[in-house]
């Protein structure tokens, strides 16, 4: 093996590194970036792509060269060079990778601190997840919604709770993710810097409806956000205005809101609510002909009587705890009202 051979191999490694890196860096690997955190993480991704290209080039060149150069002719029964090792080389390939990974770790640590730094003027949003729905409460604004609205260019801190199993909060464009763990409150921050509509995706397996557990996310200007908050306040004001709900129309409104908030629409088809999911029985088909008491039982003890084709344990069985008497009543009334008159199956 001459010095020229080693130099040629080194040149090949560098050329391959450059080629792979340049090609790989043409792509937006992580997709649209929609937050300041995303920019940091995307830079880290690009740096690692270059480092990885170098490592992979070393391996490919060494392997490719050996296959090309040392491939045995048929019938060749000779042995290779009786080389047992090379201490200096072995020390090098222990120490150099150590340094590389430690530098990568230090750099990641810096980025981690930066993306998790808390801003003093941040917006607070409380997130509650349950099978298979999201709910967002704005404590400072006093509104609650099933859509996540946040102002652009301002940090938002999400304080999150799950009421049944573990869920996970992820907006791919923001790059941030955090599990919601029953029994504790977890926090995550994001600073969206791109206006538009996105999707919040549950990324922790949470049961049969896991793949449908999403919520709309709207990033908008501060003015639009304020307008949206005012809109929400108006709606809630009319609902909560007179204390106990008396008016049947308002009660139905409350029921309709609960149907969305509690995640019913994530699994059940109900034409009145415009939902089309098929994880649970279609309510348009199974509810007509049932008494309000039956419907109530089906909500709080879903496994007591199962519709054909649906097994036990599919529907969460904690609605008896999470809904109070009045809410349950509005929900049942809403379901009765919206399926009345439809043909029994």
């Amino acid at each position, binding site marked *: 093996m001459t010095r020229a051979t080693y130099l040629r191999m080194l040149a090949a490694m560098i050329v391959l590194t450059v080629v792979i890196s340049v090609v790989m860096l043409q792509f937006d690997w992580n997709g649209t970036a929609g937050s300041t955190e995303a920019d940091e993480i995307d830079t880290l991704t690009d740096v690692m792509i270059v480092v990885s290209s170098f490592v992979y080039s070393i391996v490919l060149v060494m392997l490719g060269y050996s296959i090309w150069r040392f491939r045995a002719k048929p019938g060749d029964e000779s042995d290779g060079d009786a080389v047992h090792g090379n201490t200096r080389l072995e020390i090098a390939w222990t120490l150099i990778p150590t340094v590389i990974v430690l530098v990568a770790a230090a750099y990641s640590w810096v980025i981690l601190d930066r993306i998790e730094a808390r801003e003093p003027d941040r917006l607070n949003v409380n997130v509650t997840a349950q099978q298979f729905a999201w709910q967002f409460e704005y404590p400072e604004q006093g509104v609650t919604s099933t859509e996540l609205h946040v102002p652009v260019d301002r940090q938002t801190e999400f304080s999150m709770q799950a009421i049944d199993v573990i869920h996970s909060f992820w907006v791919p464009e923001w790059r941030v*993710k955090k599990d919601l763990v029953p029994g504790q409150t977890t926090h995550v921050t994001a600073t969206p810097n791109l206006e538009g509509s996105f999707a919040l995706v*549950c990324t922790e397996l949470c049961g049969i409806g896991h793949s449908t557990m999403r919520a709309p996310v709207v990033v908008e200007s501060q003015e639009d956000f304020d307008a949206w908050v005012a809109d929400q306040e108006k709606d809630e004001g009319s609902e909560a205005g007179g204390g106990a709900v008396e008016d049947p129309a308002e009660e139905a409104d409350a029921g309709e809101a609960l149907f969305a908030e509690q995640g019913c629409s994530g699994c059940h088809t109900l034409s009145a609510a415009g939902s089309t999911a098929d994880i649970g029985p279609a309510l348009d088909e199974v509810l007509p002909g049932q008494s309000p008491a039956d419907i109530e039982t089906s909500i709080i003890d879903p496994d007591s009587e199962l519709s054909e084709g649906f097994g036990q344990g599919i529907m969460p069985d904690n609605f008896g705890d999470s809904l109070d008497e009045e809410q349950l009543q509005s929900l049942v009334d809403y379901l009765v009202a919206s399926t009345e008159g439809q043909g029994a199956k």
Partner: protein
Amino acid sequence: MRQPGQPRAFLGALIGGAFGFGLVVALRAISGLEIFQTEQTGYPHLIVPAISAPFGYLIGLGCFDFWFRWAAGAPTVPDDHSQHGAKSWRDYFKFNTDHKVIGIQYIVTSFIFFFIGGAIAMVMRAELAQPGTQVVDPGVFNGLFSTHAALMIFVFVIPIFAGIANYVLPLMIGAPDMAFPRLNGLSFWLLPIAGVLFLASFFVPGGAFDAGWTGYAPLSTGAPLGQSFFNLGVQFAGASSVATALNFLVTIITMRAPGMNFWRMPLLVWANLSTSLLVVAATPFIAGVQFMVLFDRALDTNFFQFQAGGDVVSYQHIFWFYSHPAVYIMMLPGFGIISEVISTHSRKPIFGYRLMALALLGIVVLSYTVWAHHMFVSGMFSWLRVPMMITTLLIAVPTGIKIFSWLGTLFGSVLHLYSTAMLFSLGFIVTFVMGGISGVMLGLVPFDIHVSDTYFIVAHIHFVLFGGSVFTIFAGIYHWFPKITGRMYDERLGRVHFWLTTVGMLGSFIPMHWIGMQGMPRRVADYSAQFGDWNLFISLFAFMLGAAQLVFLYNMVVSWRFGPRAPANPWRAKTIEWQVSSPPPVFNFPEIPRVVGGPYEFGVPGARHAIMPGEEAEVREPVPATVAGGSRT
């Protein structure tokens, strides 16, 4: 019926099951409870028989006959070899104490579960080929990916390595058998029980366990009955691997042939020593945590019941304290196989042998310190992330040492590319390094936050477990096929298998990185339409990957039956297992060989690894300098 064997085993299972069932009914009757509890997760009248029937089966099969006789003071013959060796295929269905029979039992059983798990993967890819639900509904889908992973991990990858080592390792170290042959037999028979329990969950009320192979609480504590079958299956698989690991440890430490000091052990032996150290210390954690889930489910304990003060995140800590080392349990034996194959088929000593062995031990130590990198977004104590990131990245160093040493071995070699085992070893380097690189990226907390629980993870795990472990398994099976069966396999079909597998594997798993980074979560039956094209692409390559395995199956079955007779040492290897006939005699060696040098002394004039019984003792001992790694040339 009184003879140990399958008929008595099934009778035993029946009696065991009836006993368990009767026990539950009797206890409930005495306590004044409703005889048949039908709450969602309870079902004691099914869970207790699911524990007692397997024990009845094992007793019926004869796994405990010797020990029972001994405990009862009945006459036993310590040298009774009546349960040793196999004369016909029927003997493979019996309790056996011969490590070679047990090795074959392990390998064949594991491959059966591999093909079942693979078929499940095909159904999943059919469902995922298009957005929306077409083939199976989301509930069934959750059961499919959970059983796919459980089968592949617990009853394929982990035990097949135990099977290969069971066959090869005692021969390699010049031992007549494993240290505890009866325990070895019992270890094997625990394995099919685990697999059958996993699969049986498809047929119980509520369907197969569907909380993923990770079975995170509280999803698992509240899941239907199938989850209990997972909890129990893991106990049997875990007990099997702990017993085997103990057996390997004692065998390796005490039964090496004279002259085989630690620095003369083949790297496969080093690899299984390291793996066994991981198994004995880590596996009890998963056994414990699955019992905790089972107790939460069946006995109303509150380990993970957050409403009663249980701590949900602690499940993940205990689970990953096993399951991260488990990643190395599934990789280190493969590293050993690759070392054997590459050295033999490149006709060169392993480059830096001692550092290779030390790197294995380095991985063992480090792998206990990285578990929380699976939990960067789990809501655990957030300070823990940075030290876990550093250890996670550091574990890449000993792994890198192994890669570089293999490349160093290939450099200046006489590289025999005709052999399928060698093709899979070189393919392994290409695919495993890619999995290693994505692993380093996942170790970086900020990047992990983004891609955690997405298809990037699916891509990574398949690059390390398929491109890593499964490639090494194929390399090992092809390499030792002549030794085990006494027949040669068809290299042409082997090459077809290799290329179809490699192309199918790359086509299936490379795009998964991208769709994960772009926003597709894992473990979903349905996904956003933007990922439709890539998923169709992945499914087509996955079907090709699946079909490729049928070529392997055909090659193995036909070659085993009709292949040309294999010589003792078709690859001209130096290690001891190749110095005996193919297949080896029942007791391996008429007389224990004597080890006089390192295992890979290719190209060293006059050097030998071992002097076999009956050989002339004329061979001079090689000078120590050529044995050790690190010597300058």
